[in-house]
C-alpha cells in the first residue's frame, strides 16, 4: 500500500512550496488517477515518489509497504518496486535499448536477491513481455529513445515498466502527445498490468485516457493538495465543469 501523509515539498534551491499537505492512500490492486490543471504539482509528486534531486520534503512522509522511502536513493526505490513512466523520457545515445534494459533488469534483480539473467534468457523474457503488449522489439535495437516519435517513447516506457515488474507504477502524463492508436496500446499495456499485487497512479491532464484506463478512484489536485476524491465518474464531471471551482477555493 502507498501512503502519502501530509506531504509538504519545496524546491531545493528556491523558497517555493509546491506540495502543501498532500495526503493520499493507494491500496495494492487499485488504480488511482490524479487530475489537475498545469502547475498544480502533479509532476512534482511523481518525481518526489521516485526520489529525484532538486526537491526538499519539509514535512510529512511517504510509506511504501509500510516503510518510509524518503531517505532512499532512486535506485533503491526502483529495487523496492517503484517505477516512474516519464512524461519526457531521456535519450541515451549509443546505448541500445536491449543493453539498457538488461543492465536495469539485472541491477534490479541483484538488489532483489535474484540471480542475473543470461543474455539468451533475457532476450526470451523481453520478447514474451513485448508480445503481450503488442510492441515490436525492433525498437530495442536502436539507442534508447534517440529519434523516437512521441508514441514510440511512451510505448518504450510501458515495455520497460512491464519488464522491470514493479509493484508501484506511477505514470506521469503518459497520454500527452499520443495519437489514438498509441493511446490504445499504452492503455492496454497498463490494463494488462493491473494485478492484486500492484498499485498504480495515473497522472493526467485529460479525461480521455480514463476512458481506456478506468480508475478505481479519481483525485482532483489543485495547488499542491488533493481537493476532491471520488470514483471514475468524477473524471467525467471534471470534463464538463473544469477546475475553476477548485481553483477559486484554493485561492
Amino acid at each position, binding site marked *: 500500500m502507498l501512503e502519502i501523509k501530509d506531504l509538504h515539498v519545496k524546491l531545493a534551491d528556491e523558497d517555493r512550496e509546491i506540495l502543501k499537505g498532500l495526503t493520499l492512500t493507494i491500496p495494492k490492486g487499485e488504480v488511482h488517477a490524479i487530475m489537475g490543471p498545469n502547475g498544480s504539482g502533479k509532476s512534482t509528486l511523481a518525481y518526489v515518489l521516485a526520489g529525484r*534531486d532538486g526537491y526538499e520534503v519539509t514535512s510529512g512522509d511517504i510509506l511504501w509497504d509500510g516503510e518510509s522511502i524518503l531517505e532512499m536513493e*532512486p*535506485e533503491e526505490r526502483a529495487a523496492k518496486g517503484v*517505477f516512474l513512466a516519464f512524461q519526457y*523520457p531521456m535519450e*541515451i545515445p549509443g546505448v541500445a535499448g536491449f543493453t539498457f534494459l538488461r*543492465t*536495469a533488469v539485472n541491477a534490479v534483480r541483484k*538488489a532483489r536477491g535474484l540471480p542475473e539473467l543470461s543474455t539468451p534468457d533475457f532476450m526470451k523474457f523481453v520478447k514474451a513481455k513485448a508480445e503481450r503488449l503488442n510492441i515490436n522489439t525492433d525498437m530495442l535495437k536502436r539507442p534508447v529513445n534517440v529519434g523516437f516519435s512521441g508514441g514510440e517513447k511512451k510505448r518504450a516506457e510501458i515495455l520497460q515498466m512491464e519488464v522491470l515488474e514493479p509493484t508501484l507504477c506511477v505514470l506521469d502524463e503518459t497520454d500527452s502527445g499520443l495519437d489514438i492508436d498509441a493511446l490504445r496500446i499504452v492503455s492496454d499495456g497498463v490494463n494488462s498490468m493491473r494485478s492484486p499485487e500492484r498499485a498504480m497512479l495515473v497522472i493526467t491532464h485529460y479525461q480521455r485516457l480514463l476512458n481506456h484506463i478506468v480508475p478505481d478512484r479519481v483525485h482532483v489536485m489543485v495547488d499542491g493538495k488533493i481537493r476532491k476524491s471520488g470514483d471514475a465518474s468524477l473524471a467525467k464531471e471534471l470534463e464538463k465543469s473544469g477546475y475553476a471551482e477548485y481553483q477559486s477555493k484554493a485561492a
Partner: protein
Amino acid sequence: MPAVQETIEQVRKIDVDQYKYGFETKIDTVKAPKGLSEDIVRFISEKKGEPAWMLEWRLEAYRRWVNMTEPTWAKVDYPKIDFNDLYYYAAPKSTEGPKSLDEVDPELLATYEKLGIPLREREVLAGVQGARVAVDAVFDSVSVVTTFKDELKKAGVIFCSMSEAVREHPELIKKYLGSVVPQGDNFYAALNAAVFSDGSFVYVPEGVRCPMELSTYFRINEKQTGQFERTLIIAEKGSYVSYLEGCTAPMRDEHQLHAAVVELIALDDAEIKYSTVQNWYPGDKNGKGGIYNFVTKRGDCRGDRSKISWTQVETGSAITWKYPSCILRGNESRGEFYSIAVSNGWQQVDSGTKMIHLGKNSSSRIISKGIAAGHSQNTYRGLVSAHRKATGARNFTNCDSLLIGDKCGAHTVPYIEAKNNTAHFEHEATTSKISDDTLFYCRQRGLSQEEAVALVVNGFVRDVLQQLPMEFMAETQKLIGISLEGSVG
C-alpha cells in the same frame, strides 16, 4: 543535492590511489648510470651488442637532440624535466636473452599474471572464442619474451624485439628505421632515437595476412627510469596485420618519463591496424606522480590503396602528448584515427592526429571522443592538410567531448589546410555534459549512479569501441568504468 553537484563532490574525493596496477616487482636490474651523454648512448648500444652502424645512428640522433628544445605548444603544464636526473637503461638481470618461457624469472611471469596478460600460450589459447594473440612483452627496457614466434615464422611473418631485429634483419632495419620518424623529427623522437632500448619489430611479407593479432605489453617497473621503446611495423604489398599494445606502470611518487616512437609503413594495397590501450599510472589524487607520456606515432601509407588505422584508448598517464598520424602518400590511400581519451583527477591530455594528404583521392576519417572528469584537462589537437597535388582528397572529422563535473576542461584545436580546390574536408564537434536528468532516468530504472555514468559514457564512445579487436572490447569497457570510478559515488 543534484547529481552533478554530488559527482563534483565525489571527484574532489577522487581516489586514484587505488590504481589497480600499482605494484612493484622486485627483480635485480642492470642499470646504466644516471644522466645522458654520448657515453651513455655508447653504453646502451654496447650492452645490446649492436653493430657500429646502429651506434652511429644513435649518436647522430643524440647530437641533434642536444641542440633541440622541448616543445611547449601543447596545452599541458608540468615542471621542467631534468634529463640528467634519469636512468636511460634498466634491464632485468636474469632476462638477457631468454630462450623460452622456462628461463624467464617466475616473478616476472607473476607480474604479467597480475596484469592479466595472456603471456603463456596456453592462457592465450584458452582465451575468448579461440582468439589468438602473440605477445611481445617489454619490461622496463628490454623485450622479455615473444610468444608464438614459430607459428608466425611459418607464415613468413617476423615478430621479434628490436634488438633481435637489429642483429638478425639489418637490411630491413637500415632500410626502414627512421624512414617515417627521422632522428631529428622532434625533441622526444630524437631522444628516443638516441637511447631506445627495445621495442617490437614486425615484418609482414607480400600478400600475407598475419594469422593472428599481434600484441605488445609495456610496463615501467624500475624507479626513475624512462621507457623508450621503439616499434617498427612494415606491411609489404597486399599484406595485412593487426597490432595491439597495452601499457601499465606501478605507482610512483616521482614522475616517470615515457617517450616512445612507433613507425608504420604500408606498401601498395597493404593494411595496418594499430590499437593501443594505454593505462599508465595517472598520479594520485593531488596530482603527485604519474607517467609523462610523450609519444611520436606515425604511419606512412607509402603505397597506392594502402590503409593505416589507429585506434587508441587513453585512460592513464599524468600527461599525454601524443598524435598518431598518417602520411597519405599513396594514391587512394586511407588513414583512420579512432580515439577515446578519458581523463580524471589532475590528468592532462593533449592528443589528436595529423592526416597529411599527399596522394590523389586519398581519404581519412577521424573520430575522437574525449571524456573529462575531476580537475583534468582534455585537448584534441588535429591537423588535416591536403598537398597541392592531392586532388580529390577527402576527410571527415568528428570530435565529441563529454564533461563530468565543473572543474574539468575540454578543448578542441583543429588545424585544416587545403592547398588545392578539389579537397573536401568536413569537421564536426560537440561538447556536452552528462545531465542530471539522464542520470536520474537511469537510476529510476535501478542503475546505481556509477553504473549510470559507465553506461552513458560507453554509449558515448561506442563508435570507437567498435573499432577495437573483439576480445579487447569488453576489457576496454571495464577499463573506462574503472578510470571513472573516482568521478562518481
